[in-house]
């Protein structure tokens, strides 16, 4: 009995999480543009998607910005973590506080402040300003996931490496970095997804004619969102799902060997 209840409960959770995405995937095959009418099964939105240059360039921008901003933020965030371990306790907690504020702060405040900053510095709005903004709001997430890893480090291993004749650089890359890698990776992924998701900050800091997927979708509000977007969302969802499956299955294989 309790087992059945457990299954029903899990089932409900999964249903509520995935019913909206399921609806979207079904609609991406709907020949009618209307959400409430089934006009037959079709692949035409997928074909139209790959002919729509605007959507494709928005997709390219989104991916480029997500990748570059995540890379830069990971680099800066990781180095910041290393620096913070060398600080006194007081300075360290002040630094942690400073990096936590942007995360708790409302996005719209960050967006508008960045916009005002760029205006006052005379920086032209374009893909560069979006990238700078994304790096800015990504850094705290990287620090958040690398810092715990940093605390777990055993200082003796680094010293041992030095005692055995390794240079500082070698010791860092051979001893410290491998221990940090899981934290760095998860920080990178977190930054990547945050950047993919972002609408508000991008909206305020984007330049003329530069769109990411989120801002592109939003401009379609007046005339109704096009089914090509359903098709694209479906493709992205399936890709992410496949990647997650791959990531989750591969470690088991290694252990078996």
């Amino acid at each position: 009995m309790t087992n059945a209840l457990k299954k029903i409960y899990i089932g409900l959770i999964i249903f509520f999480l995935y019913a909206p995405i399921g609806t979207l995937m079904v609609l991406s095959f709907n020949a009618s543009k209307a959400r409430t009418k089934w006009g037959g099964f079709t692949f035409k939105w997928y074909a139209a998607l790959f002919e729509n240059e605007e959507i494709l360039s928005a997709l390219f921008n989104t991916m480029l910005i997500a990748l570059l901003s995540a890379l830069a933020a990971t680099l800066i965030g990781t180095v910041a973590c290393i620096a913070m371990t060398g600080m006194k306790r007081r300075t360290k907690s002040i630094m942690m506080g400073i990096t936590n504020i942007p995360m708790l702060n409302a996005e719209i405040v960050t967006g508008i402040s960045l916009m005002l900053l760029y205006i006052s510095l005379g920086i032209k709005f374009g893909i560069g300003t979006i990238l700078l903004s994304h790096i800015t709001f990504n850094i705290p997430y990287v620090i958040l996931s690398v810092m715990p890893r940093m605390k777990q480090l055993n200082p003796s291993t680094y010293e041992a490496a030095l005692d055995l004749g390794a240079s500082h650089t070698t010791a860092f890359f051979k001893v410290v970095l491998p221990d940090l890698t899981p934290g760095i990776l998860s920080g990178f992924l977190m930054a990547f997804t945050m950047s993919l998701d972002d609408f508000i900050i991008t909206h305020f800091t984007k330049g003329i004619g530069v769109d990411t997927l989120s801002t592109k979708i939003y401009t379609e509000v007046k005339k109704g969102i096009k089914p090509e977007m359903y098709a694209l969302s479906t493709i992205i969802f399936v890709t992410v799902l496949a990647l997650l499956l791959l990531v989750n299955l591969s470690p088991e294989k290694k252990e078996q060997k």
Partner: protein
Amino acid sequence: MKIHMKTFLRKQQGILIHNIANFLWVCGASTFLSLASTGCTSPENGVNGQVIVYNWGEYIDPETLELFEEETGIKVIYDEFETNESMYPKIEAGAVSYDVVCPSDYMISRMIKNDMLAELDFDRLPNAKANIGAQYYEQAKGFDPENKYSVPYCWGTVGILYNKTMVDEPVTRWAQLWDEKYADNILMQDSVRDAFMVAEKLNGFSMNTLEPSELETAKNALIEQKPLVQAYVVDQVRDKMIGSEAAIGVIYSGEAIYTQQENPDLEYVIPEEGTNVWIDAWVILKDAPNKENAEKFIDFMCRGDIALKNFEYITYSTPNDAARELIEDEEIRNSPIAFPDLSQYDNLETFSYLGEEGDAVYNELWKEVKAY
């Protein structure tokens, strides 16, 4: 011993960090600068310079932009917005300098009041002068009293969309949205001005009224209607009516033809009490960096064949008489939904800007309605 090792480690780390930090500072700063500067260099210009256009999303046939570039050698830099309210602060902040913008009626009157628009020289806009129907310029006087600042681009009415199989009488009046037999079958627009427009027209008031007693009457009418309303929605009117989820709803005429194609049981009507005629129009900003090219752009969009392409793409009514002549499908050319004869209706009005205080009054009353 342990403490000693920790300080030692700290020292070593200090040196290491110093090195890494130096290295990163150099690479980081240089990549940032180069990225920021790629943002700086303006996108490639055409032979005859560029024009920067800010328009609604999905509100132009992309092909017409290519044709314009080919014919004039002017590069179009195109950007889109989603609401008048999100467009305005971006222009006001001056983050980007646009040339041509396409706001709606009341937003144009606000921009005129705030001295943000450039006067147009219609001698340089021959197509706009010749092709845009006189009745639309007349209607545009509601927000641009001397027709000095704007050239109508798209327009339409707000009316009632009803499902013929779900009502047993012809629908002709706003008052029928207050009929109890349609309880739970009515869709209202979920936006202040649109909702109040219905209640004000019902009572024979102007939809730009600021008279407290009239506003009170309109508010009470909306509160009275509230129990009958199935939902206050925006986009969903379209889909809900196609899916026959409601019998009667308030909708923009631009959506009406499309909904009829999807569901032949639907009928659109302009209510007898009068309604809102909305106009989205091209304007040139006062600080436009490329004024001459902006004029060329607007005039090109007013050319009959180009306006026709845009009409077919957007499907909202065009004020361009030359384009209307070119429509091949007679049914659409003479459609009373797409091209109603405005002179046949009384009390047609266009929204004008009420000022910040006026907007605040409306918002306050709307809150009272929604919270009731």
